[in-house]
């Protein structure tokens, strides 16, 4: 009889946990994945077929928390700083689904790699007042093979030659890009005329049949929706392979509440969880992978009192989103196609004007962020943005907020600040009686200057593309802007990073360069909590590449 239930227990089945579980079982280790959400993703028996519950249903996915977490059961709170009191808002804050597959299920899967410079921000920029810049303990060259592996595993469609600013890559994308959305053809042509460099977004949706799954049929219910035909690969592919290996098991509705520490305090031995009937269970293991997402991971560590107490929960980064809206005379049918088909890195790379704006603001650079070319959401979301009465009907019939709207979203890099953090709310509790996670977040001056610099330039792109009017907002809002009002102050981004950073120095980090907790080496973090800085790209491909790397190192140590 072995003295443990499996080699590794994995907390969380999102892109990070799924990638780690797959890498571990591939390396011959046995794994149990515990996921607090429900399983709507794949059957428990071979061939682990889709369950057929994902659909083009705006009510279910955007209004009724089908993928969880229900904010009534698991509230989060938000404040800008201590001057706001205990909290300003209660409910959904940067919320990503809690379900088998985590946020990978409903993300529309733009999966670009970071650039070389993103891994050495401190060396690039030097010190910045009020921010805590560091270099990563791992560089692009070391991560490149894992990026390649992640792209093949998930199935990423893209064009290796299209982005002049991309870092080097060892091979082509596994698939060519899917079709360009009409709105993107207009906007990218205009952007090129203005000297920018848009390119087809590397996307985790099949452009051709791949790995036994069909090509995306452009249904348009992509961001916020599970894919009804399984054209999205992350994280169903790693989870299915993990199950098919015979060495992996998946337990849904298994809410991890405790981690078991060895008597000498130097290693972990497993976890305790509550099942669907809220009955406690124990799983013992030789190592624990923590992949609860960059919001829940620090919340668990704080509850457990684990990890460098000066660092856990701090340096929360979420991207400052600058949303630039362009109103067109004719219909753009943005409901056809994946939610975003093109990206643009120019604000990340910067130009003479952004360098001058930085100098004027006494900043070393404006880091900017990737610009996503897309449209609006569905008609229910459109309707809710309109006032009731005749203006509703007029607005819906004309559809200036949906079918005649183009949206550029810049995912602006936010600099790490010790005061931006996740901690435990002193009052609000979840349904299990645990303290809610609380976000305290205020953007750095750098992000506000960056938003104000790029927004008018992106408006010019939309005007060049034919927009008759433009408008921009940022989230979190620039103080004094029209959206700087109650209910709109929490950052709306779903890119959550940095809350248990890794590093070479145990005094300045929670996890070591292999994502092992300092002083508790068989506790390994495989989500974006470990990011030392945020870059201006979506975090998912990078966190998956890191998870594969960390899990493989863990497997060979067992």
């Amino acid at each position, binding site marked *: 009889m072995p003295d443990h239930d499996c080699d590794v227990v994995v907390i969380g089945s999102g892109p990070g946990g799924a990638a780690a579980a797959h890498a571990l079982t591939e390396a011959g280790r046995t794994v149990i994945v515990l996921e607090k959400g429900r399983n709507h993703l794949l059957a428990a028996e071979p061939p682990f077929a889709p369950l*057929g*519950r994902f*659909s083009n249903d705006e009510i279910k996915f955007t209004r009724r928390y089908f993928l969880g977490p229900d904010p009534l059961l698991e509230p989060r709170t938000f404040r800008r700083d201590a001057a706001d009191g205990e909290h300003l808002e209660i409910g959904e804050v940067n919320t990503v689904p809690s379900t088998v597959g985590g946020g990978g299920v409903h993300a529309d899967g733009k999966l670009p790699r970071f650039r070389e410079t993103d891994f050495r921000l401190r060396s690039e920029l030097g010190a910045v007042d009020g921010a805590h810049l560091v270099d990563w303990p791992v560089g692009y060259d070391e991560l490149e093979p894992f990026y390649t592996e992640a792209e093949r595993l998930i199935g990423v469609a893209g064009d290796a030659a299209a982005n002049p600013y991309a870092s080097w890559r060892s091979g082509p994308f596994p698939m060519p890009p899917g079709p360009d959305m009409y709105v993107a*053809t207009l906007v990218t042509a205009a952007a090129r005329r203005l000297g920018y460099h848009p390119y087809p977004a590397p996307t985790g949706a099949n452009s051709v049949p791949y790995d036994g799954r069909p090509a995306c049929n452009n249904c348009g219910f992509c961001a916020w929706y599970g894919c*009804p035909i399984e054209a999205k690969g992350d994280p169903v592919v790693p989870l299915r392979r993990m199950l098919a290996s015979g060495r992996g098991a998946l337990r849904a509705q298994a809410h991890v509440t405790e981690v078991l520490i060895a008597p000498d305090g130097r290693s972990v031995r497993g976890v305790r969880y509550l099942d*669907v009937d809220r009955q406690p269970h124990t799983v013992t293991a030789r190592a624990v992978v923590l992949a609860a997402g960059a919001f829940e991971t620090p919340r668990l560590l704080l509850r457990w009192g684990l990890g460098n107490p000066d660092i856990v929960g701090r340096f929360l980064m979420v991207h400052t989103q600058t949303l630039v809206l362009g109103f067109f005379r004719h219909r753009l049918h943005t409901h056809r196609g994946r939610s975003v088909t093109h990206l643009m890195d120019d604000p990340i790379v910067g130009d003479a004007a952004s360098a001058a704006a930085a100098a004027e603001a006494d900043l070393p650079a404006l880091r900017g962020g990737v610009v996503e070319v897309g449209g609006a959401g569905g*008609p229910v979301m459109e309707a809710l943005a309109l006032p009731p009465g005749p203006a509703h*009907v007029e607005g819906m019939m004309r559809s200036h907020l949906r079918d005649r709207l183009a949206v550029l979203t810049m995912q602006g890099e936010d600099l790490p600040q010790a005061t931006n953090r996740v901690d435990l709310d002193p009052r*609000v509790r979840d349904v299990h009686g645990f303290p809610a996670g609380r976000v305290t977040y205020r953007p750095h001056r750098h992000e506000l200057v960056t938003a104000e610099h790029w927004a008018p330039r992106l408006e010019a792109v939309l005007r060049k593309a034919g927009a008759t009017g433009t408008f921009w907002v940022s989230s979190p809002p620039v103080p004094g802007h029209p959206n700087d009002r109650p209910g709109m102050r929490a950052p709306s981004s779903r890119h959550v990073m940095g809350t248990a950073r890794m590093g070479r120095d145990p005094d300045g980090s929670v996890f070591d360069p292999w994502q092992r907790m300092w002083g508790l080496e068989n506790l390994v973090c495989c989500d974006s909590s470990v990011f030392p800085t945020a870059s201006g790209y979506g975090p998912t491909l990078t966190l998956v590449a890191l998870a594969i790397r960390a899990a493989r190192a863990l497997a060979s140590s067992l």
Partner: protein
Amino acid sequence: MTERRSHRFFDDAAWAVVAAACDRLIPPGDGHPGGRALGCADYIDGLLGAFGDDPPRIWAGGPFSGRAGGEAAFERFSTLSPLEELAWRTRIEGSRGRAEREWAGPVRGWQEVYLEGIAALGDDFCACGPEEQDRRLDAVPELRDLLYAHACEGAYGAPEYGGNRDGAGWAAIGFPGDVQPRGWTDAEVRGDA
């Protein structure tokens, strides 16, 4: 008159007030049927009485509705876990002083908001002129705001939830609705078809 199709929560008088109020928030005209004709009151009746059905009418089934091919599966509603049922019952029915529903303090349920709000609108609401109806709605902002959110969902959500009758809400605004498993061709995406 729009005939009533959902009989789960409201009595006929309350249903009529809700239908009339939906027509003020989403008024008919210019080729738009308006909230009443779209069945928004049925949508709300189905939501507030969701637990009268098993499984409850919270999440429609999948993957297809049948409108763009495939088997019509939206009508087979999905089951809820015990915790999900706790959340939705609390949200709809309110916590009503029950300890197991008050982990985050008392919750005022949607049923209560509706019933009290409808009472405040008055028995004669349906007989009032539009301006008086608007005035009375504005006087109960808690109901008006919730009703507007639900009316928007009812008007443009999938018809299986009880509103958007025969897809007339989508037709009015030129939205194709759910399109799986047909999807869109590459040419339709690019705009040259």
